[in-house]
């Protein structure tokens, strides 16, 4: 698959501190790429570099296969929608007037305004002045502005900030559906659960370093499921399998096998049954994404 964004050793230094450190991002076309990391990990700085708002100290950025440079900047921005840090707006103007400004600058017909307002369910508030909007409404307006003109690439920085739970769900569904319309989304978040619910691909950044990057499926494989056994005699079964050389581990009042193939599970069950031990339940337990993050970074993620 083609990558819509590729960065090569992308680095940004502020006062000799590397905020973003030799980042090699690969965002596949047609994906929802979840860019995950704790606050201050370098997510916003990276997104701002992708838009040319912040100039890299080192490395290279390619968007749509073109090198991001002064010459290619407009060509890339034409096909990119963004919402960075917090929604931008002119408070003395209505929501609709704010979107008209973006339409002018993006050279998008104004009839597109109703479409994006409908997508974020803001039709009723469009004539109110934005300074009277709640944070959630401003956020929706920001997403609407980013969607104007159906860009090929959408960069969204913590888009569900300030939204209520129902709003968060709506925006997640909206984002999940965007690739069907030919839009690739790069969405940042410090919430694992959120990325888990909408992303197809994941990059995890911590202290400026990319510590994981692959599809969400692979991330889940990292979660290394374990097989929990519940039998008529847990202690006897544990001893039996342990002497048979299986890597069983005892936990409180039962035991489990760590990340094993189906054959080994079958073998373990067979041995228990042959020894006259009744097997009640064999259940697969997944490590949560929080556990994965903890094992990747060695620290608790903020939730």
């Amino acid at each position, binding site marked *: 698959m083609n990558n819509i964004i590729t960065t090569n050793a992308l680095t940004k230094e502020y006062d000799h501190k590397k905020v973003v450190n030799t980042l090699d991002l690969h965002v596949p076309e047609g994906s929802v790429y979840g860019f995950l990391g704790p606050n201050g990990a370098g997510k916003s700085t990276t997104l*701002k570099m992708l838009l040319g708002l912040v100039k890299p100290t080192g490395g290279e950025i390619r968007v749509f296969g073109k090198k991001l440079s002064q010459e290619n900047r407009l060509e890339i921005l034409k096909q*990119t929608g963004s919402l960075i840090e917090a929604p931008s707006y002119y408070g003395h*103007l209505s929501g609709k007037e704010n979107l008209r400004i973006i339409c002018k*600058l993006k*050279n998008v017909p104004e009839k597109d305004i109703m479409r994006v307002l409908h997508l974020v369910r803001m039709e009723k508030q469009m004539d109110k002045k934005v300074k009277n909007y709640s944070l959630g409404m401003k956020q929706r307006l920001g997403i609407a502005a980013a969607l104007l003109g159906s860009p090929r690439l959408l960069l969204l920085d913590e888009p569900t900030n300030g939204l209520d739970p129902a709003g968060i769900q709506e925006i997640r569904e909206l984002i999940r559906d965007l690739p069907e319309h030919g839009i690739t989304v790069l969405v940042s978040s410090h919430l694992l659960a959120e990325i888990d619910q909408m992303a197809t691909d994941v990059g995890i950044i911590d202290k400026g370093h990319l510590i994981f990057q692959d599809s969400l499926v692979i991330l889940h494989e990292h979660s290394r499921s374990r097989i929990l056994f519940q039998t008529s005699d847990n202690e006897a079964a544990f001893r039996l399998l342990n002497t048979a050389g299986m890597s069983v581990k005892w936990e409180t009042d039962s035991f489990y096998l760590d990340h094993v193939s189906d054959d080994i599970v079958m073998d373990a069950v067979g041995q228990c049954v042959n020894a006259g031990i009744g097997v009640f339940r064999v259940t697969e337990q997944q490590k949560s994404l929080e556990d994965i993050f903890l094992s990747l970074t060695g620290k608790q993620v903020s939730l």
Partner: protein
Amino acid sequence: MLYRCIQAENLKLKHSVIYLAFLVIPIIPAIMGTFNYMQNLELLKSGWYSLWTQITLFYASFFYAPLIGIYCSYTWRLEHTHNNWNTFMSMPVSIVSSYLAKLVCIMKVTVLTQLWISILFFIGGKMCGLPGIFSPEIILWLLRGTLAAVTIASLQLLLSMLIRNFAIPIGIALFGSIAGMFMTNADLGNFWPYSLMMLGMNSNQNEDVLSSFAGTASFFASVILFFLLFFGCAVWWLRTKDVRS
């Protein structure tokens, strides 16, 4: 692309307070100038011409540049607040167009300001009982003052872009204008951007300061060179510096 940027800037200035400043502030130098003229009738015997020198003495020396400063600070304040720098700089329009669009909108209000001060001048003259209408050369001076305003607007736009405080650039404009009076009196007006207003408007002078060819040429050269300098600085800054919001 520039036209689209100007349309966008016009939309931003809807319902804005910029027009209130434009209406109210020029009234002050008009009243001060007219009052000064009435107080010194025995010295000022040239009718419309004398009234013009008095009104522009206050207008060009104290109000014109700070007023443009207010327009510029206001237009940048829109971008400095509510995270707008990110959007301003990530739109698919060239930096030169974005910046020129702001300048064009400022100049639009400035031309209206010039019209307004000339209307106030006319009203003041009629209130003093001056006969007929003023001589056409005053229109030339208004146009020259407007040209000088392009230079001042490019300077004030640069200052208000760099300084995120609303009042400081306006204070600089006021200080610059007062210093400009001394520079003009010392015949160094062409080297000080804020003096260009006074030179162009022919404020507080007995005869046209730019009557000679050399005078006119150096005035225009100064207007153009200062404009290119300020404009170039702004574009360079926008191209090379990181956006902070």
